[in-house]
């Protein structure tokens, strides 16, 4: 059962072959059986999940029409609020924080009768690319338990890959959905900035953060995106743009569709075996009738530098709220109120979070603001312009999602810069604010390789269309890890 997709499960429910309670118990059993090894869950809401499943079964029994996602067990990254459950951000700082409200996406999922199994592990405050920065436990890659699942939404990716949840939500500030999706062999989408409300998502870098789904295939992704997208008055950056029915982009042909291949993404630093898999994927799309064009995005090489200045600067400001006063960790011993702030923050935050706060504070401090922060904002303009211009000539841009397959636990944890480089292909997309999806597109030594498709603003539809065409032609999305 756990290897199935949402659309397969929906069919079984509709035929009356499985009840939502059975499905939910099955998922909880699966978690109890394997999560000791995976480490994807930080909290499990067994009672809430079963009660919701019963409610949906009752609705179905009464003959009521239910949504596509109704009764399907899912889970949520632990930086997105679900009322009454803890939202820890995998940090000691928020270890005991119970969310007093639902995030907008949570509210929408509840309206769709989603069965919420629990909250998922991650890098602390979404800062990291390996999920090794969780204050509580590491997440492991279901394809190889000695390897990382990627990050920061490592729990969200691993839970879907291992069949602990049929779909999950994550957040993506510089690649935190797409990179773990790539490393765990699942589909992960970062929508256009503003397509999904950030209300109830603990802020990391507000101008880059976006919530998105993890699913086993593109078809499922279309359904989940449709459910969580939309304007929300509580997030002034969410777009007042009508939500499309993304499922209308399924089963379409891609003849004549123009796909841009940016040469800068295939240069030095890309693992040769990963390159071969992506080149094979390009050939699949060419055979389906897509027009493949080489393009150039020369500003891409500056994206990671821009990202680390902007993301860290925004983080240093956003995380100033954690001071041990209104909520979160408070140090036991302190001399005065300033010492209370200092001790609470120093004891409550982990090293990577401190590193980014320090970098951001430095970049924003007097004397350095123009050289770092303002400079990065200007280069951001150039990156945005470059993407806008590229989409005058192509409909979608195709790149690898990450330069390598999943690396070993501990392999990069002592070198922050090397760790940051695993996001080199994903960060430019957040800087520009365009949507992008990672789709399983190959294997190297038994480990998944992801292909990234980048779309124009609010053109998630084309990503679904191309991704689904690829998925129908290949078997990569049907592979499951042996765990």
């Amino acid at each position, binding site marked *: 059962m756990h290897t199935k997709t949402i659309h397969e499960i929906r069919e079984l429910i509709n035929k009356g072959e499985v009840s939502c309670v059975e499905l939910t118990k099955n998922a909880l059993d699966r978690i109890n059986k394997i999560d000791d090894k995976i480490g994807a869950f930080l909290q499990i809401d067994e009672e809430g999940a079963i009660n919701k499943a019963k409610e949906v079964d009752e609705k179905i029994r009464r003959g009521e029409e239910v949504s596509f996602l109704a009764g399907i067990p899912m889970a949520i990254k632990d930086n997105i609020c679900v009322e009454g459950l803890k939202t820890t951000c995998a940090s000691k700082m928020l270890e*005991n924080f*119970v969310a*007093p409200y639902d995030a907008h996406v949570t509210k929408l999922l509840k309206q769709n009768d989603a069965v919420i199994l629990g909250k998922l592990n991650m890098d602390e405050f979404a800062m990291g690319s390996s999920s090794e920065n969780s204050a509580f436990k590491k997440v492991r890659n279901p394809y190889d338990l000695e390897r990382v699942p990627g990050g920061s939404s490592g729990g969200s990716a691993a839970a879907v890959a291992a069949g602990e949840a049929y779909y999950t939500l994550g957040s993506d500030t510089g690649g935190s959905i797409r990179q773990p999706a790539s490393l765990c062999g699942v589909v992960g989408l970062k929508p256009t*900035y*503003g397509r999904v409300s950030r209300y109830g998502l603990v802020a990391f870098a507000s*101008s*880059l953060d976006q919530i998105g789904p993890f699913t086993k295939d593109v078809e499922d992704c279309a359904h989940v995106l449709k459910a969580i997208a939309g304007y929300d*008055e509580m997030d*002034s*950056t969410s777009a007042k743009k009508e939500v499309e029915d993304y499922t209308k982009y399924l089963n379409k042909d891609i003849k004549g569709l123009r796909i841009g291949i940016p040469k800068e993404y295939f240069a030095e630093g890309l693992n040769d075996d990963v390159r071969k898999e992506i080149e094979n994927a390009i050939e699949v799309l060419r055979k389906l009738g897509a027009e493949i064009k080489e393009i150039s995005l020369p*500003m891409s*090489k*500056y994206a*990671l*530098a*821009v990202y*680390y200045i902007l993301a860290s600067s925004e983080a*240093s400001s956003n995380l100033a709220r954690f*001071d041990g*006063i*209104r*909520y*979160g*960790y*408070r140090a036991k011993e302190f001399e005065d*109120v*300033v010492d*209370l*702030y*200092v*001790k609470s*923050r*120093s004891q409550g*935050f982990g090293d990577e979070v*401190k*590193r980014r*706060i*320090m*970098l951001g*504070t*430095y970049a924003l*401090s007097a004397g*350095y603001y123009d050289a770092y922060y*303002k*400079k*990065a*904002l*200007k*280069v*951001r*303009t*150039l990156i945005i312009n470059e993407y806008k211009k590229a989409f005058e000539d192509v409909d979608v841009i195709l790149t690898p999602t990450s330069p390598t397959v999943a690396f070993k636990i501990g392999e990069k944890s002592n070198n*922050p*810069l090397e760790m*940051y480089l695993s996001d080199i292909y994903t960060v430019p997309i*957040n*800087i*520009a*604010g365009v949507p992008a999806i990672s789709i399983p597109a190959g294997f190297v030594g038994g480990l998944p390789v992801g292909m990234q498709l980048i779309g124009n*603003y609010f053109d998630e539809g084309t990503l679904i269309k191309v991704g689904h065409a690829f998925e129908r032609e290949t078997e990569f999305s049907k592979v499951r890890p042996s765990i």
Partner: protein
Amino acid sequence: MSVTIRDVEYVAKLARLEFTEEQKQKFTEDLNGILNYVEMLKEVDTENVEISIGAYRVENALREDVVKPSFDREALLKNAPDAQEGFVKVPKVIE
């Protein structure tokens, strides 16, 4: 530009963080590594380029100033490390 331990101490003070001597040393190295990397931005000509604070659109988000129910005070205070009589409790601030 090279960051010294003294810079790290100054920035830590601004960020309300404290470190051991060993950590200061490590953060100095880490910050220098990252800042060396971002030095590459210097080669980009940004003369006459406007800044972009957001992804692509900047528009005012205005709404009517209408009173709406807010969160329940007791519910919010459950997350406070120390609370008393409907208020968050803090150490003495003014001498």
